[in-house]
Every structure is written in structure tokens, then in C-alpha cells.
């Protein structure tokens, strides 16, 4: 019961991050699914993508009402990503899961540094 409340609360928080910053929410969903609900890393990453769908449908609906969505670039990004997704799935299934987790950590660090650098430069 406690775990379910925890998952709902973190889901809601992930949705706020998604709406606020234009990320899917997977950065919170994946740890919630592994640490909170006990899924393996691979099951969590797959299920996180499914959880992202209602999140972005609601968020995009609101953003479109605010006039912030650029539909053509969004469609180009999304369609181009299909090839990348296929490559990512293949790699995800061929790597050991602790390697996946370390790669995930390294990616977060790199992006954090990139954004921090940009803000400081402004």
C-alpha cells in the first residue's frame, strides 16, 4: 500500500517535471519502477516509455493551448527518432544491465555539465 502511494506521488512529480521542462518524466519513472516497484532495469525502461505516453498527451495538449508547440519540428524530431529508437532497443538488449545503469549515469552528468556551462556563459 505504501509502495503504491509512493509510486503515485512520484508519478505525479514526474509529470510536473515533464510539463515544466519538456522531458518525458522517465528520469523519475525509471528509478520509481526499479527501486519502488522492484522491476528490473530493462522492464523499468520499457514500462517507463509506456507511462510517458499519457504524460506527454496531457502536457502537449496544454502546451498547444498556450501556443508553444512547433508542430513541424516536433514531427521531424519524432519521426527521425524512430531509427534511433530501433538502434537503442537493440543495444539495450545486448548490454549487461549494470553497464546500462552506468551509461545512464554518465549521460546525466554530461548533459548537466553542458547546461550549466551554457547558463554560466550567458
Amino acid at each position, binding site marked *: 500500500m505504501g509502495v503504491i502511494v509512493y509510486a503515485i506521488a512520484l508519478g505525479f512529480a514526474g509529470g510536473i517535471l515533464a510539463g515544466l521542462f519538456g522531458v*518525458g518524466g522517465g528520469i523519475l519513472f525509471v528509478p520509481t519502477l526499479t527501486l519502488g*516497484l522492484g522491476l528490473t532495469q530493462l522492464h523499468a525502461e520499457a514500462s517507463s516509455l509506456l507511462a510517458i505516453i499519457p504524460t506527454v498527451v496531457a502536457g502537449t495538449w496544454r502546451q498547444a493551448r498556450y501556443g508553444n*508547440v512547433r508542430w513541424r519540428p516536433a514531427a521531424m*524530431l519524432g519521426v527521425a*527518432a524512430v531509427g534511433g*529508437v530501433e538502434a537503442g532497443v537493440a543495444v539495450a538488449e545486448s548490454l549487461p544491465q549494470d553497464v546500462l545503469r552506468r551509461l545512464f549515469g554518465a549521460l546525466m552528468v554530461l548533459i548537466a555539465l553542458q547546461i550549466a556551462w551554457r*547558463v554560466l556563459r550567458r
Partner: protein
Amino acid sequence: MRLLLIGVLAGFFSALFGVGGGVVMVPLLLLACGFSERPAMATSLAAIGIIAGVGTVSYAFHGELKPGAAMLIGLPAAAGAIVGTAVQQRVRNRTLSIAFAGLLLGLGVKLLV
């Protein structure tokens, strides 16, 4: 052309790490495509819908999905996204950028320790 390259990168990282690709797309839309914060984040969110949809179908064929767990998180997240977009609309672009950097730095440090 840039958009297509960013899309490929975002899709790859999306499927690999279970994130929607927004952490790849938002910085690149800001840095490489001259988007300001709100349109970058809104456009990223819309693109993530397509990416997550395709990623979900791919994983479903491999039998990796846990739909109950996904909806337990995804449905409250939909409500959260409505709140998040309403807040975003009322926050200055520069503040958004700094907060976004803070979020990613926090994540990075947490994963490093």
C-alpha cells in the same frame, strides 16, 4: 537537417535509457536550433509522444512491458503534466533554463555519488 540529427540522437538515448529523449532534445533545440525555452520544451514534449509510442511498441514485441506499473505512474503523471505546463507558462525563460540546469546537475551528482 539538424532537427533530423537531433531526432535520431534523442530516439537512440530514449530507447537505451528509458527516458523520453527530452534531456537530449531540449538542450540541442536551445543550443543548435535557436529555440527559446518554452517552445523548445513544448516541442520536445510533443516529439517525445512519437518517440515513446514507437519505443513502447518495440519493447512490447520483446515482452518487456509491465502495463499495470506503467499506468500506476503514467496516469498521475498526466495530471502532474497539466500542473507543470501551467507553472511553466508563468515562469521567465531564464529562470526555466537555470532550473533545468539545476535539475540535471542534481541528477548527475546523485548518480555520481
